[in-house]
């Protein structure tokens, strides 16, 4: 491979290349001092860029205080998932109890007591006695 065709591969990190590209680059760099120097320079550049992550700039004065004030206002919301889960479970339990009670009350109010049904109409497979039938009896 010529220097010209290898050149686009030189700035790439190893994990950004396909295995074929990586082996082509390695093979060429091993035999070409100019491309080897280029490759080494890119490697050093990459190391220096990674070091940049550890450098910190000082924010404008008052930035920290402003953040603390703003999050202090917003932090009243519960964010702990355990607390949220417990609150959700309790809510679901209360809702279940309320709905169950309401249904039970409704059933008691609407359903004609079985004891008042005509005995012959309580056989399985027969139509449910209507109020009119009950009255007729």
């Amino acid at each position, binding site marked *: 491979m010529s220097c010209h065709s290898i050149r686009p591969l030189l700035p790439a990190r190893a994990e950004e290349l396909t295995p074929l590209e990586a082996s082509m680059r390695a093979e060429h760099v091993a035999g070409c001092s100019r491309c080897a120097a280029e490759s080494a320079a890119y490697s050093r550049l990459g190391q*220096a860029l990674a070091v940049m992550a550890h450098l910190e700039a000082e924010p404008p004065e008052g930035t920290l205080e402003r953040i603390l004030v703003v999050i202090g206002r917003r932090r009243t919301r519960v964010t702990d998932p355990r607390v949220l889960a417990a609150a959700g479970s309790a809510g679901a339990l209360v809702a279940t109890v309320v709905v169950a009670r309401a249904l039970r009350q409704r059933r008691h109010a609407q359903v004609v007591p079985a004891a008042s049904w005509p005995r012959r109409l309580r056989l399985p497979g027969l139509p449910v006695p209507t109020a009119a039938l009950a009255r007729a009896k």
Partner: protein
Amino acid sequence: MEVDRELVEAAQAGDRWALEELVRRTHRSVYTCALRLVGNPDDAADVTQDVYLRVVRKLGGFRHEASFATWLNRVTTNVAMSTLKRRTRRFAVEGAAVPADTRDPAPEPAERAEAVALARRLELLVAELPEGQRQVLVLRDVYGQSTEEVANAMGLTPGAVKVRLFRARERLKAELEAAEGGQVVALSGRRRATGRRS
């Protein structure tokens, strides 16, 4: 950015002191990342504040699958990118993106001193890159995000990210060599002198 897991868990459990301590320990790092991405101090300070508002909302969902620093960095990236999409840039970078008052979080070992010095010089050169190239380079090479993560954050294809990366690295290396007077910069403490001594 040094953050204990215990501190994060305490903040997640609603400990007010822990949350504030978390902010105190990380806000410079968040601000620096934001500054490198958005390019000016005012927007970077706004982004920093927005980051912590989002952190307060989302901290409960943080599962410690990645480190807190990585998670915070992703939040910062997303907030910065959203900010950039919303706003037209108020003024050109013109060196404003350079964290002029950089401070090292901890004393550097002697063998890293040159790397730090080089990184400081690089900071100036990175700030001069075109915005798209700068953002890709910062996310990928400074903060170590994957090409796919960078593509997602910036709304680009991985191919477009690679193209920008290539151009940014090529340009940066050329400018660094020019700034160093033609020397090939080494971190090992030795330089291959091809020009003047610095």
